[in-house]
């Protein structure tokens, strides 16, 4: 599935991933391929993505995620790429 991570200042990530773990406002959750459409609020925490290049983690600020048709869009106010 496609993952896109956007902040107001830049596009942090765009590419094919197999899984994303996100810090939801009511607890963390993971998005895998063919996930049902969802819009969720995110809180500050760690985002972990798994792609063919390996696992990456970043600290993110609060924001939102939208999952639709194997497209994951993460909108956050800022990110620290580790």
């Amino acid at each position, binding site marked *: 599935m496609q993952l896109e991570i956007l902040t107001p*200042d830049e596009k942090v990530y765009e590419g094919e991933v197999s899984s994303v773990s996100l810090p939801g406002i009511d607890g963390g959750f993971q998005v895998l391929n063919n996930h049902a459409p*969802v819009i969720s609020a995110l809180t500050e925490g760690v985002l972990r993505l798994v792609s063919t290049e390996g696992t990456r983690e970043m600290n993110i600020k609060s*924001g939102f995620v*939208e999952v*639709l*048709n194997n497209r994951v869009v993460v909108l956050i*106010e800022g990110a620290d790429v580790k």
Partner: protein
Amino acid sequence: MSGKLKEVKTRIASVKSTQQITKAMKLVAASKLKKATDAIVQMRPYADKLGDMLGNIVSATEGEINLELANERPEINNVLIVVITSDKGLCGAFNTNVIKQAAAGVKAYDKQRQAGKLSIMPFGKKGMDFFKKYENVNLITDYVDIFKGLSFENAAESVERILEDYTAGTFDVVKVAYAEFRNPVVQNFQLRDFLPIARMEQPVSDTAAASKSKADYIFEPSKDVLLRELAPKILKTQFYSYLLDSNASEHGARMTAMESATENANELLRSLKLTYNRARQAAITTEITEIVSGAAALQGN
């Protein structure tokens, strides 16, 4: 005669050096403008997506959306006007025009001003300098220096402060005077309503929402919570776009101003050179006349 020559020569030199400065300033403004417009372009996908998301949530919500930030208050006691100007001058009528918008806002809330309940929050020094002279106005100068290091983080912080004050009832209405960026030569000076949020209409872009609203989204934790979280984010994004727009407009205005200054200097140089050549020719003619008449006098002997 040589006195006049010298005078014109020094004037030419001084105009030339001024022109060099305006030329350099134009180039600097052009590169800063490039950076500023890049920032606007960078932010666009985020802002668009945020708007889409709002559209998705709104279209999935039936009935009235109840959002505190969108409710108009029955009585307007306290007013805040945000003025976004530049720190530096030499950018034509840019600051004057922004201030004109803000002053119109001040005029419209004269009643609140007389009661001492009108506040002005300048972003950028020029706005502060102007409204310092106003009586009966509370000046909030915490964010004057925002353009020294403009980032979303700084902008978000100021919006959080405004939202906090608004929710606490310190302000009932918030307006923003800024310059919308159209292109490098055209700015659109505006006084926009910031709070309360203008009534949320059904989806911003109908087609995008129509195709997407078919998807049966799961809303987590709930639509209400999402909307409550989304509203401040959208306000921050909007405010940040005002700041970025004003910043780009400023550099555009300066570029245009410096360009015409350089052109004016060219014009001036041309006429000065003409004067210089005329004076020089006059000096030569006089000299020749003197020599010729001197020679004629000698021959006469």
